[in-house]
């Protein structure tokens, strides 16, 4: 395991993995369509996107199971293109774990350590790996005798015992129930921190991506849409696709009126009126744009002017959905359904006022 971070950290070291112009086509459709990407050392990077967006294909190209049709892939300064999977310092945790059914847990984990004729006794390393995933009791079991969560742990142990420079995880939690999933998310994140190696994770679950990742790469139709840390992704989505895919949001269409590029603010004309808010880079006056309104940035005012918002619209409550800790409310304002949350539920059909702090809204490009 690695010790403290080196001092030169702030110098932004060269990336562990570098992809340039990566292309993979199946017939006439391009699963991966020109991807440029850097994956930093020791970071937890997640590919996030709907199914078929190309995220798994990228993972498989990194692992070596698919050969790119174009572009370059460089790991540790060495091109991976002609290196077979077994010679890449990369290991994979498969979606359905792909544990060898004819081998015990111990033998599964020891697999990579026993391939060379004169390998040293693998037992200590295997036991350490099993301890790391809290599975040391289960060495003699066969995969079919384990629960899904246990199999997943074994798959992780098997992949990391080989000490890869990069651990690939292909939707490893998707087959588990919700409770087990959140439990294992914490374990995985913890493990990554302790091992100090780079994890590349693939998921279509945005909450999982946010819970785990240092960097999230949002993909759509074979291309990268945005690469950022979770907070940035949420607050400043690069376009309507990201805003819509990540979290809950009301997207209001409109036109950019004026911008002050330097300060990152612009005003935008919408059905709700003219609103001034932070803006994505590169939009000019006259461009079509989307106003991203997150539920928690809107407020419901029911009686009395207890608090005034810079922007406020009258509306009628259309839907109320109980969500445990709060209510999700859809209210119609100027023909637009605004989604927000509230602690106390209004009646359906009630007239209310919806307030907004424009500083927390965001103007972005229309989605794809």
């Amino acid at each position: 395991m690695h010790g403290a971070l080196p001092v030169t950290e702030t110098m932004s070291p060269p990336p562990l993995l570098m992809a340039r112009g990566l292309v993979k086509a199946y017939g006439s459709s391009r699963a991966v369509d020109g991807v440029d990407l850097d994956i930093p050392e020791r970071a937890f990077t997640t590919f996030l996107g709907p199914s078929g967006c190309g995220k798994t294909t990228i993972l498989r190209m990194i692992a070596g199971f698919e050969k790119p049709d174009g572009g370059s892939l460089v790991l540790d300064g060495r091109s991976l293109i002609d290196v077979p999977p077994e010679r890449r310092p990369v290991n994979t945790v498969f979606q359905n774990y792909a544990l060898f059914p004819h081998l015990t847990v111990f033998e599964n984990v020891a697999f990579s350590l026993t391939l060379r004729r004169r390998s040293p006794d693998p037992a200590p390393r295997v036991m350490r790996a099993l301890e790391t995933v809290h599975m040391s009791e289960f060495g003699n079991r066969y995969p079919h005798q384990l629960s899904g969560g246990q199999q997943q742990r074994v798959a992780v142990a098997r992949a990391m015992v080989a000490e890869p420079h990069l651990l690939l995880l292909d939707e490893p939690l998707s087959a588990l129930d919700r409770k087990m999933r959140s439990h294992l998310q914490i374990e995985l994140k913890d493990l990554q921190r302790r091992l100090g190696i780079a994890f590349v994770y693939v998921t279509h679950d945005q909450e999982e991506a946010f819970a785990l990742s240092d960097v999230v790469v949002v993909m759509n139709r074979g291309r990268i849409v945005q690469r950022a840390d979770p907070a940035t992704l949420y607050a400043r989505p690069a376009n309507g696709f990201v805003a819509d895919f990540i979290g809950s949001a009301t997207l209001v269409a409109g036109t950019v009126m004026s911008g002050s590029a330097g300060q990152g603010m612009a005003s935008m004309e919408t059905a709700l009126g003219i609103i001034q808010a932070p803006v994505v880079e590169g939009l000019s006056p006259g461009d079509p744009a989307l106003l991203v309104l997150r539920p928690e940035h809107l407020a419901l005012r029911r009686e009395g002017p207890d608090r005034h918002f810079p922007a406020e619209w009258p509306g009628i409550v259309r839907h109320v959905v109980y969500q445990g800790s709060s209510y999700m409310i859809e209210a119609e304002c100027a023909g637009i359904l605004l989604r927000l949350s509230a602690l106390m539920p209004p009646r359906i059909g009630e007239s209310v006022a919806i307030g907004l702090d424009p500083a927390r809204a965001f103007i972005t490009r229309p989605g794809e």
Partner: protein
Amino acid sequence: MKLPLSRAHLAIPVAFLLFLGCLLPLILLLVFSVFTVDMDAFVMVPAFSPQAWAQMLTKPVFAFLIGKAVMFGLGTAVLAAFAGYPVALAIASLAPAWKGIASVILLTPLYTGEIVRIYAWRIVLGSEGLVNTLLMWLGVIHAPLKFLLFTPFTTHLVLLYNTLPFMVLPIWLSIELVDRRLIEAARDLGARPLHAFLRVTLPLTTPGLSVGLFAVFALAAGDMLTPSLLGGPSGVTPMSMIDNLFGTAFDWPLASALSLSLLLVLLACATVMSWLVLRLKGARAVFRGGMR
């Protein structure tokens, strides 16, 4: 009261037929084997006599023939496994459309009658046959290779050819059932293709391999026509001996004793084989459904 009808119950009619068609004749054979034949009146005498079994156990010719059948069975099974596995691997790696074509080609020998095939082999391997004519024309040899036809070599070759589909088909099916991701996992963990094959594909296809071994063993050990029509003077088999004893010699007790002995030995071989198979981890993993 509801009768719980499980999948196992569906086998009852077949089990009944198996009993009638298989066990009953065996019981008859057992009874016949302790009778004697009145060679004057040509009738079996239902009086207990250990004579047939005494001959069976003391005359080396019977043990020799049964041993020969077992060796032919095992030899053909092992050869077919080595020849058939690569074929099965190749078919499994084809595109789906080509798999259909490959399986049709693979089964072609089965569509032609056995006698037709036997005479075709004579045309191919005979003294004036295709192989010898070609080799002489090329100048490789100056006199026909006589060992090609009517020798144990011929029997082995033709048994191998005849039984190959029964080896390839189950292995192929077995390979198709191995999750591709397991191979990828092995490669990912550092196994070269050969190692991935030896440590993952091969163990997990042992059920197909053993079905093939069983089928080929039974077919080759029990074949009569191929050895007798292509094996030359040494082509006698327990089967042809049984045929001879039942028919020409009218010695039903000895024929019954030989039939039962052959059956027992072949069953013992099959039992040992299945015991060995079930000791294999790969086979056990597949049989308990661990592949899913």
